[in-house]
Every structure is written in structure tokens, then in C-alpha cells.
């Protein structure tokens, strides 16, 4: 991330190891995300009943969003406590709102 413009020679073996790990994780999550997307399409294509298909797709979506935030946007790294607590705060408010709306208006 922040060693882009560091001289390659200067990166010590520890750093190298770290970067390799990081890269592996990135690729795994990337493959997983593509897989999830394929599964989501497959679920629809297979003609599964909506009552099963919709929750399944929603779950896949939530997991994908998690990967997106934590791996691609580095929320798992240190120094992201404030953004993540703000994001969770926002999710909390939104969930609360939707929950109340659905239960007391449309139920």
C-alpha cells in the first residue's frame, strides 16, 4: 500500500512476506466474490422458489459487502476504527428505520 515508491531492494524479507500474504488474501477474496456473483445468478437461473432465492441472494450480498469493506477498502487494517464505527452506526440507524417502518406501517 504505502510502499509503492520504496526501492524494491530495500523492502526487507518481512515486508515481502507480508505483501505476499496480503496479495494471497486479495486474490482469494476476489475469486470468492466472483463465485458469489455466479452463484447469485445461478440461483435465479435455476428457477428456485422466490421464498428461498431472495434470502439467499441477500445473504450473499451482505457477505460481499463485508469483503468489499474489510479486504478491498482495508477496514480490517489498523487506523480504521472511526470510519468503521461510523459505518456501523449508519447501518444501525438504517436497519432500525426500515424495521420500524415495515412493522408499523406496512405490517
Amino acid at each position, binding site marked *: 500500500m504505502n510502499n509503492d515508491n520504496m526501492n524494491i531492494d530495500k523492502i526487507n524479507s518481512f515486508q515481502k512476506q507480508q505483501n505476499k500474504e496480503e496479495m494471497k488474501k486479495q486474490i482469494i477474496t476476489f475469486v470468492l466474490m466472483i463465485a458469489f456473483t455466479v452463484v447469485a445468478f445461478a440461483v435465479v437461473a435455476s428457477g428456485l422458489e422466490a421464498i428461498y432465492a431472495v434470502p439467499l441472494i441477500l445473504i450473499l450480498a451482505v457477505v460481499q459487502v463485508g469483503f468489499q469493506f474489510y479486504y478491498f477498502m482495508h477496514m480490517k487494517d489498523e487506523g480504521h476504527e*472511526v470510519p468503521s464505527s*461510523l459505518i456501523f*452506526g*449508519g447501518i444501525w*440507524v438504517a436497519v*432500525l*428505520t426500515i424495521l*420500524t*417502518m415495515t*412493522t*408499523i*406501517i406496512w405490517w
Partner: protein
Amino acid sequence: MSIAATQNRGFGATLWDYLTTVDHKKIGNMYIAAGAFFFLIGGLEALIIRIQLIKPENDFITAGLYNEMITMHGTTMIFFAATPILIGFMNAIMPLQIGARDVAFPFLNALGFWLFLFGGILLNLSWIFGGAPDAGWTSYAPLSLQSPGHGVDFYVMGLQLSGAGTLMGGINFIVTIVTMRAPGMTYMRMPLFSWTTFVTSILILFAFPALTVGLFLLMFDRMFGSAFFDVALGGNAIIWQHLFWIFGHPEVYILILPAFGIFSEIIPAFSKKRLFGYTSMVFATFLIAFLGFMVWAHHMFTVGLGPVANAIFAVATMAIAVPTGIKIFNWLATMWGGSITINSAMLWALAFIPSFTIGGMTGVMLGAASADYQYHDTYFVVAHFHYVIVGGVVFGIFAATHYWYPKLFGRILNEGMGKLAFWLFFIGFHLTFFIQHFLGLMGMPRRYWVFLEGQGLDTGNLISTLGAFLMGLGTIVVLINVIYTAVKGEKAPADPWDARTLEWSIPSPPPEYNFKKLPLVRGLDPLWIEKTEGKGKMTAAEPAVDIHMPNGSIFPFIMTIGFFIASLGFIFQVDNHLWLLAVYFGMALALGTMLARSLKDDHGHHIHKEELEREAD
């Protein structure tokens, strides 16, 4: 820019300076000045309402105009007076308190100010373009859908503009506090006013989008023939109420939390004691913000949500009284055993505690859902929210004005006039609103144009109107004080109150870069620590360096003009499609300016350290 060069300049140059400024202190001052102007307009509207109610069956103004008055009074006071004045103080003071040279997004800051100002101007233009909005500051559908003319359209567009500005302000403050604190200024060393600015900004970030969505739906319903709130076409009018209050209840905390912060600065400073229970104060602030999002339906108890929903929201509502109570006791404990100075700022703070507590207690009464069937939409509610908003927020604004005026403008407000204004306003306030509790309990409905003779309402209303005039007098004295101080006021030293926080360690008014060298913060109340255990002034955390400053820009102003023109176009295209041209032109202007801003590289400028050294202070 040297200090000598900022003096004796022409009017044109000064105007240009303010139109293009990105300096958080100037923007803060403009927020305060514009907010004060709207406060006067809102106050005038209040007096007109009270004159209409001075005696039974009065015919001072017509029923239609009366509805416009109450709507404009509420909308102006909440959105264009109280909120912006507080944002002004946050802008001007918070960066000084955390030891920052600027805010994180100076350009956005300027844009936020102009959007607010032109939103307010747009709203008030409705008076001359065929009538002001008249569906109440809550603008409930279906009333707001059926209101004829363009009044409610002005409400929608005016609030949409200023709401966007407020949202930008909130984001800016959050990023500033997270990223720009001085060395050593950990979160738990931040002054309470900075803390409440932070939490308020989070509330803004989460609450304003609900208003934005609601306003968009209302806009589509009124201008483009949709039917979100139109029951006849399958819409649902209750959704507006939910959206409005999901925003609206947090909004009342957006107003009161900064006021809590202000008092938490003033009370320790004039008690010569550290704030009692600092950690619990921070905790209580968060708890209030958290609970504040779960109580909105207490404004809708009588809508028919059902007993389960009402019970849940009633319990959540009453829970807010707990963190609020923690704060009250902490302020009292701060004063306990302190060496107290009673000046104007402190008088407002002292008066706030009992006044606000009364408002909190009536709040808990209203929060009891079954009892609220009796109170709802009566003058009891009017009394409640004026006790919290005037007794809390407005007292806070007056206190902050006395406390920080020297820092902002380099002069000290006159104490004699300050005390006179306080007593006039304080007595007037309680005369006006205390009696309204009883008017409400006797059955006088809210938003009432005339009342009949012989129902026991005459005396109460007369007293209430007289009180309102006393408050008006008090406000005039404040105005005279400000003008008098500008002409002959006593010059303020850097630290006129022997206070505790960082803003008092720099000159009054501060130079444009605030801190010549960033200070090293060694604990809570950093200046006080240095006074008692150190050299009496802040130690620098860095050697003299060149200071990077953002360049001024006219773009925020031009963008705002673009959105303003587009808003007018949206309002009038209902009558004549040619007005769509204004929409296109305005949007093109605004978006084009955004594009220009994005493509243009502007790296700001540096104030060199040699220049800083020459500017002896």
C-alpha cells in the same frame, strides 16, 4: 497577508474577501451574522403571532396570514437561526480548541455556508412571490399537498438547499476532528464543545438524509404529479411523518448538544474548576445521540401506531432523561465549591439549568404515551419545546456570544448591557411560556388563530404576549450592545477570562493561520495545565515552519447561485414550462463550476516562516 494590509481596505475588497473566503473563522462569523439576521425575522414573526393572540377574537391578521406566520416562524427559527448560529460557533471555535490551523475541507465549508444562506433567502422570497408556506414547520401531508400557491414549494426547495449545506458542514467537522487534532490532543483530552460538535456532526450525517428523502418525495408529489403521500392514489401520508421525525427528533439534539457543549466550557471557566465528571459527560453525549434515533415516533403517539409501538417508543423516550440528568448533575457539581464569577455569560448558564430542566420534565410527561393523548397539539407542547429550545439552545447562544465574542472580534461585550438584556429576556421568557403549560392543560389547541371570550384563556394569553415583548426588548439590548462594542468596546486580550482551553492561548482575534506553531497538548484543559504547572503558555510541538493555507475561491458562491436559480425554476415550472430553462441553466452553472473546480489544480499557498516572524504579536 500581513495584519496591516487587512486594515483600511475598500468596501469592494472586503466584500470580495468575504465572498471568496475559505477561512473557517470568517465563515463562522458569517454563519453567526446571517443566523442572527434570520433570528430577528423569526422573532418579528413571533411577535406578530403573539399580538394576534393578545385578546379574544382579535383580528390583527387573517387566518391565512396567521398560518403563514407560524410556519415561517418555526421553519426560520429551527433551520435558519438556531442551527446556523450553532454551526457558526462550531466553525469558528472548534478548530481553535483542538489546535488545528483550519478545517479539513475549507472549500466545502464555504459551499455549505452559501447554500444555507441562499436556502434561507429562497424561503423568505415566498413572501413576495404569492405567499409563504402555511402547512406548519412540520409540513404534514396531506395538508402540505393541498396547500395552494407556491408557499410549500419554497419550503421544499429552501430546506433542500440549506439541508445540503448543513450535511456538508457535518461531514467537514467529523473529518476535521478525526484527522486534525494537535499533537497530544487525544480524544479524551478534547474540550466538551469539540466533543459535542463531533457528536452533533454524526447526528447531522445520519439524520439529514431522512429529511432530504422526505423533501424529494414531497417535491415530486407537488411538482411532478407523483403520489407518494396521496392516499387517494394509493400513497401513504404517514410516511412523511415518519421521515420528518426520523430527521426531526435528532434535529432537536443537533440543536441542544452544542448548547450543552457551550455550557460545559463556560461553567468550568467561571467556576475555576475542572469540569466535573468529564468522562461521563462524553459518555452521556453519545448515549443521548444513540437514543435520539430511537424515539421519533413519540411525535406520532396519537396517529394510531398501536399500543405496542407506542409503548416501545415511550420507554425509549423516557430513557433519554437519564443521560440528560447526568449532565445536569455534573454541571451542578462543577460549580460546587468553585470560586464562581457571575458575569453575563455565566448568568445565561445559571439560568439555563432550571429552565431546561423544566423542559426536560415536561418532555418526560409528554413521553408517557397515554397521557400524551391529552397534551398532544395543545399549548402544553408549545410550552415544552420552547422551554428546551429557548431555555436551552437560545440561552446557550447568548452565553456563547458573551463568552467567545472577545475571541472572534477582539472586543469585550459591555457587561452592564449584557446583564440588562439577560434579565429582560429571562423574565420575559418565563412570563411567555410558563403560563402556556396551563393554557394547554385548559384545552387551548396549538396553532390557534383566535380564541373565544369567557373560556378562561384571556389573562394567560395577555401575560404571554407581554412576556414576548420583554424578550423582544432583551434582544434589542443585545443588538445595541454589539453595535456599541464595535464602536467603543474594550479591547480584548488573548485570554480575558483566565480560561482553560486552547483557543485562549492565541491572540484575539486569531491570525488567519490560528497557531504560529502547533501547541503540544499535555492533558485536559491544556492552557490551564500550563498556567498551573508550566510556563503559563503553550509549548510548541514543532519548530517554526512554513504554513500551508488554502486559496480563497469564488466557486462556492457561483455554484450556490446555480442551485438557487435551478430551485426557482423547479418551483415555477409548474405554472409555465419555460421556467424549465432556469432549471437547465442553473444546473449547468452549478455542475459546470464543479467540473471547473475538479479540473483546476489549486495547491493553496504558503505563509513563510520569515513573514511569520516579522509579524510581531
